[in-house]
Structures are given as C-alpha cells and as structure tokens.
C-alpha cells in the first residue's frame, strides 16, 4: 500500500503547489518581460526595492484580508480604516502627545483605531449576524466620513522626523517597510498553517455550522479575524504615514478591491475554507510588478488598464491548466 500512496501524496503535493507554481511562473514571466523590455532599469536592486516598498503597504492589508476571506467573510472597509487610522494618528492632539513622549504613541493610536474598527465590524458580523458585505460597506462609508470630519479634509503632516526616519530607513539594506511586510507575511503564514487559530479559521470558512458543532467558538473567532484585519490596516496606516509623511482621509483609496484581488488571484477561495498567505504575497507582487513594468515601458494609463484585464484572465486560465484538478472547478 505504500507505493501508490507515496505516489499519491507527491502528486497531491505537486497539485497543491500547482496553483502557487502557476503564480511563481507568472511572476517569473513578468520579470523576464520586464528585464527584456526595460533592461537594467528593471533588473536593478533599486527598482526591486521600489517594487517591494510599494507592495508592502497593500501587502500587509492583503495578508490580513486572507484571514477574513479564508474564514468565510469579506471586508470592504479596509481602505477606509487605513484612512481613519492615519488621520487619527496624525491629529494635532496625537502628535502633541507623541512629541511629549515618543512617536510610538502615534503607532499605538493607529493600531488601536484599526483594531477598534475591526472589532466593530467583527461584532456586527458575528453577533449582530449581518452579512459581512453590508457591515463593512457601512464601515467603508462611516470610517471615511469620520476621517474627513476629523481631518477637516486637510492633509495632516507628520512632524516627528524620528518617526519618518525610522520607518523610512533600512536595516542591512532592507527598507523597514519591506521588513515589516515580510514579518507580517511570515507571521501570517505561521498563524494560518501552524496554529490552532489558523486551523479553526479554515474550518469556520469551510463549514461554519460544522465548526460550531465541533465546539469552536465561531462568533468569537470570527470577531477576532476582523480585529486582526483591522490591526493589519492600522499597520498599513503607519507604513503609509511614514511613506507619505501625512495622514489624510484619501489614503487607502480602493484598497478593498486591490486587496481582495490579490487574495483571490493568490488562490484563496472567495467562499472561504481555503487560504494561502504565500499566494496572497505572490498576488500582491504580481500586481505591483505589473504596474512597474508598465511604467518603465511608458504605457499610457488606459492601455495599461486594458492590458491588465487581459493579463489577469490569461494568467488565471494558464494557471488553471497547470494546476488542473479535475472535478474541482465550480461554476461560480
């Protein structure tokens, strides 16, 4: 029995990797195209870091989104939460407090605001039993509106240079932002694949009723997922504040779409029950690299949009042929 089974497992391994493999190939092709068309300008360390820095902010949000989607939810309010966190953390009051103590106060504020927004989302979804789509749509409107009111629609400038320098700096040549993204991604991977929390997330997303009857505290866990994503938004807000030296209600525009797109392209099931952090990271990198290659090649925006649409579809189609699991594709 060992023979066929071992064979089976390795085939399975390959197939499970198939999706990821497809993404790696897509990214590889993209890099080859980039290097071929833009040469040195693409294949330089500087350019690599530029791509990675850009990927970091949306990447952190996407990793958080992976959890919510894997757990069977959705969050449309991430961009708004990023905006609100950034605004709250850069108000005069917060900045003054930070001045009197340490910029960590600003960071704490952003994380707290993010987490509280996530908590509200989570409570309303898990205990209020309102569809996640509606709850987070309301949060999207509410948080952005509140951000505008707080900021009085002005851009608030971060005055603490230490803050900007710390997060804008590098450690051993790696930008702090990229490091943060790497940490969040690694932490996310461990959390999803190596902990009871991750296992329960997958179970809840796969069959919430079965999870409930197996004794999992589904409502509490679901709430936690949204808090986690809220925290990720808070982190993203800090990163954005460092990157742009500002807090404004326009930060995080359309992050919801970008993050969900990265997660879904990465291979996480939109209906929940299956998630991959590695896929999400690859998804984010693909989108970011695509933009970079386009820019290096001087494509105009409209053509970029059309090309992007076509590339997404072709990439996913190819990927499916590579990772073809018969009988597993659903008409959805």
């Amino acid at each position: 029995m060992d023979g066929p089974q071992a064979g089976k497992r390795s085939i399975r391994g390959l197939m499970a990797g198939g999706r990821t493999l497809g993404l790696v190939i897509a990214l590889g092709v993209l890099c080859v195209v980039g290097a071929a068309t833009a040469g040195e300008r693409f294949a330089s360390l500087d350019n690599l870091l530029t791509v990675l820095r850009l990927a970091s902010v949306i990447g952190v949000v996407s990793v958080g989104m992976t959890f919510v989607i894997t757990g069977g939810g959705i969050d449309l309010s991430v961009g708004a939460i990023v905006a609100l966190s950034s605004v709250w953390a850069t108000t005069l009051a917060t900045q003054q407090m930070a001045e009197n103590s340490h910029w960590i106060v600003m960071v704490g504020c952003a994380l707290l605001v993010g987490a509280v927004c996530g908590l509200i989302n989570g409570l309303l979804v898990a205990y209020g039993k309102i569809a996640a789509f509606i709850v987070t749509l309301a949060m999207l409107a509410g948080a952005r509106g509140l951000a505008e009111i707080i900021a009085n629609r002005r851009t608030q400038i971060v005055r603490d240079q230490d803050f900007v320098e710390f997060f804008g700096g590098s450690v051993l040549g790696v930008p702090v932002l990229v490091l943060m993204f790497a940490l969040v991604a690694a932490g996310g991977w461990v959390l999803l694949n190596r902990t009871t929390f991750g296992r329960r997330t997958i179970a809840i997303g796969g069959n919430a009723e079965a999870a409930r009857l197996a004794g999992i505290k589904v409502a509490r866990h679901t709430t936690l997922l949204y808090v986690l994503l809220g925290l990720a938004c808070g982190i993203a807000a800090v990163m954005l504040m460092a990157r742009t030296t500002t807090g404004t209600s326009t930060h995080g525009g359309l992050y919801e779409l970008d993050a969900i797109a990265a997660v879904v392209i990465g291979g996480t099931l939109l209906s929940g029950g299956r998630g991959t952090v590695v896929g999400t990271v690859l998804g984010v990198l693909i989108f970011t690299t695509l933009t970079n290659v386009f820019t290096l090649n001087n494509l105009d925006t409209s053509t970029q949009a059309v090309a992007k649409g076509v590339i997404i579809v072709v990439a996913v189609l190819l990927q499916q042929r590579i990772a073809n699991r018969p009988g597993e594709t659903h008409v959805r």
Partner: protein
Amino acid sequence: MTQEPRELLAMRGIVKLFPGVRALDGVDLGVRPGEVHCLLGQNGAGKSTLIKVLGGVHRPDAGEIHWRGAPVALTGPLSSTRLGVATIPQELDLVDGLSVADNIHLGHEHARFGFTRRGRTARSAVELLTRLGHPEIPPGAEVGGLPAAAKQIVSMARALSRDASLLVMDEPSAVLDQREVDRLFTVIRELTAQGVAIVYISHRLEEIREIGDRVTVLKDGRTVAGGLDVASTPTPEMIRLMTGRAIEYVFPPRRKEIADASPVLDVRDLALRGSFEGIGFTVRPGEVVGLAGLVGSGRSEIVETVYGARKATSGTVLVDGVVLRPGSVPAAVAAGVGLCPEERKSQALVLGDPVASNITIATLDRFARAGFLKARAEREAAEELSGALDVRPSDVDREVRTLSGGNQQKVVLARWLLRECRVLLLDEPTRGVDVGARSEIYALVRDLAERGVAVVVVSSEIEEVLGLADRVLVIADGHILTESPASSLTEHTVLDLILNGAAA
C-alpha cells in the same frame, strides 16, 4: 424460466478512475424490467460511483453500457434522463431556496412558453407526495426549512416525477424510519408491477431480503457476484461475498450490571418551543440510553438541545452535577459532551478539508503548545483512529469530500472517539455504514460504555436501539412516551407504542 428475460440495462466492464483511486475496476451489472435489483457492497466499494456513471454524472474510463440491448453513450445527466433513468442520489440534491413543488419539477418544469404553470406544478407535486404517503408536506414550502426526512421524501417524489423505466435509489432508507420504509416498499411494488425496474442500494440486509429480487455484490470496485437470486442466497453468504469474511451480525453483549454511580448526564424538564417539552432523563456512567421514535418526533432536537446547539426555552442540563450554560456548545464540549450530528455533510464535516483535520478539529488544543500545532502528533492520532475504524482509503490527507458516504460517517465518529468524552450523543451513528463497520461501531460504543462513558443513541432502526441501549426512551411528538430497560422491549412492542401513541 426457459428464456432469459431481456435485460433493460447492461453495464459491462465499467472502470472509473479518480486521482489515486480505482473506484470502479471492471463492474458488470444487468437489470431486468420490473425487478428490484439490489446493489450490495462495503463502504467505498463503488456503489454510488457506479450509479453516478449510470446517471451520466461521471464519464467511465472504460466499459460499455447497453440500454434495451443497444449500446448507449451517457454524456451527461440529461442523456441518462432521456433514456428513462431517474436517480435518488445518496447525497440529497435539493435546492434549499426553491419550494417543494419547484424542486420536484426542477429541470422538467410544467411550463408554457417558459412561464411556469404553478397550479399544475403544485397539483402534480401533491399527487406524487400523496403517492409516497406524505400529503401533509406543503408543496409551497421552501425545502430549506424541511427536516431531513421530508427532504428525502421530496427527493423521491422528484425521481418518481420523471416517469422513469429504471429508478435508482442510493440508500433511500438511511434517513427513514420503519413506517416510512414500509411505505417506500409499497411504492416500489406498485412501480415494479408496472414494469419499472428498480436498483436499490442499502446496507440493511433485512430490507434486501424483503424487497429484492436479485442482488449484485461489489467489492473493491469489482463485481464479485452478479445477479444472484435473493431468495436462494442466505444472508451470511451475502456478507461473506461483500467482506470476504464471515461477520456475525449481532450486537455485542451488554454489561450485566451498571455501577450504581450518580448520573453523568442529567436532563431536567427540558423544552424547546415548537419541538418538545418535559424531557427529563439521566444517564449514568457506562450506560447507553437509546431514543426511539419516528422520524420527526423531535429526537434530533432533543440531543441537539442537550448539546447546546439549540437554546432550550426552559429546563436544565447537568453534567456531573454542574449546570451547563444553555445554548452554548463550547460549554458542553468543555464539560466533556460530544455530538455526532444527524446530517454529516452540513453539520459535521468540513468537506474541503483533509480527513486528518476533520478528525482532530474538536481536539486541536491537545495537539498544540501555546497555540502552535504539533503536526506529527496530530497526524499520528488521526491515522490511528482512521485505522481503528477502517476508514477507506486510509490516506488521511485525502479531502473528506472524496470519501464514500459511509466512510465519511466514520470520520465523524473518529472525531469524538478522539476526544474521549464523558457523554457522547450519537444521532443516527450508523447511517450509511456497512455491515462490517457497523458491528465495529457497535463494539466501539460498548467499549466506550465499559470505560464509563455515558452514551445516548438516537436511531431510526428500532433493532439498533434495542440492541445497543441499556435503557430506551420512546419519543413521540416531542414527549417521552415510556422509559424502560431495553431487555423488556421488543421491536414489535416499540413500534406498537410509537404508532398507537398512548398505548402505554
């Protein structure tokens, strides 16, 4: 019988491969018009897969199918329906959001220019349901709100509505009680009298004795015996063909004496509005209490409420003398209560997850340190249990979705065996489980009881309740009719009690 009657359906050398599994490996099946042809085989033998090939759901990798003597190619569900084959699948195929009548006619609606004729649809639905003995099921009700048994009836009505010349029933009796099975058999006899052929799958051998004309036995994807005459084949012979060994199809001996300990589970005056009331019983350690009753009598609701999956309107549940928080599953689980729910697919299994994590889902903390999983320990535990219950295939990385129905049920059982509960609530624990595994499960339940676990068993098979339980509660219409030691009851008296209500 001088001349062999012409076969309606002949399947020869059917092979079906799934990644890593030869589900069918050269199966032959011949069905004559007007006969009840039974398919027998252990869990995972390939019965459902064969039926799906016949239904056009799966394309076979090899083999040929003849219909009324002519070769046919089944390219999809539609082509099989057109031949005149209708199926009641093992896993219900209803649409929750549609009404009973619409479900029955899905795909062949009564319509004019695309507009549904609602009156006719409802009338013909009622007609079919009446024929099945269920005129009370409202044709306009949404199927999603019906109990499992009613759904099964709707699924049957749908198959009947096709006016098929071959009707395939994949374990139709699994969710039905005695009375319902009898009604089903009446319908089957009516149909066969009209020349309709029936392919009947069941793990209950006595049913096959009762209704079957001929039987084909599958083992590991192969036909080991084709078209045996049921009447001339003794039951032990069938079991031997199926399993390759002789199994004594009996219940393990009961323990003589149950320690006079204080009860582990104490249910007091429990009620759930609209379902049941005044339910009170106790279960001592080592005791097995059975709940007998008709489908719809509220037994599932009772155990689900005890478990906290439903919030009781009044009453209390005590485990080891401590009151459980009502409506809280985690509280019950923490107190050592486990539930094998009735509907494995929707209530118990995370279908897309591997077998291993489905087994360990309720015990995760045991395999974790500070929240981090010890993958090896988890895997070993899962493998051990799946081995003990003989889950096939034995690969615990396989998605539960791809397991046969009976094997899925074993996975659910394994979950709670792993947890080492103080109280185990089993709702239809042997639904869809084959003879061999069934006796293993009985032995397991006994074994658990020996070790001091308090067990509650709900089953629609009265024989099973009587054979397994020490004490039996007969439930009707949300009330306890009687409570007596199993030894003082017979199948007949219980059925009598249930049907004639207050006979006690």
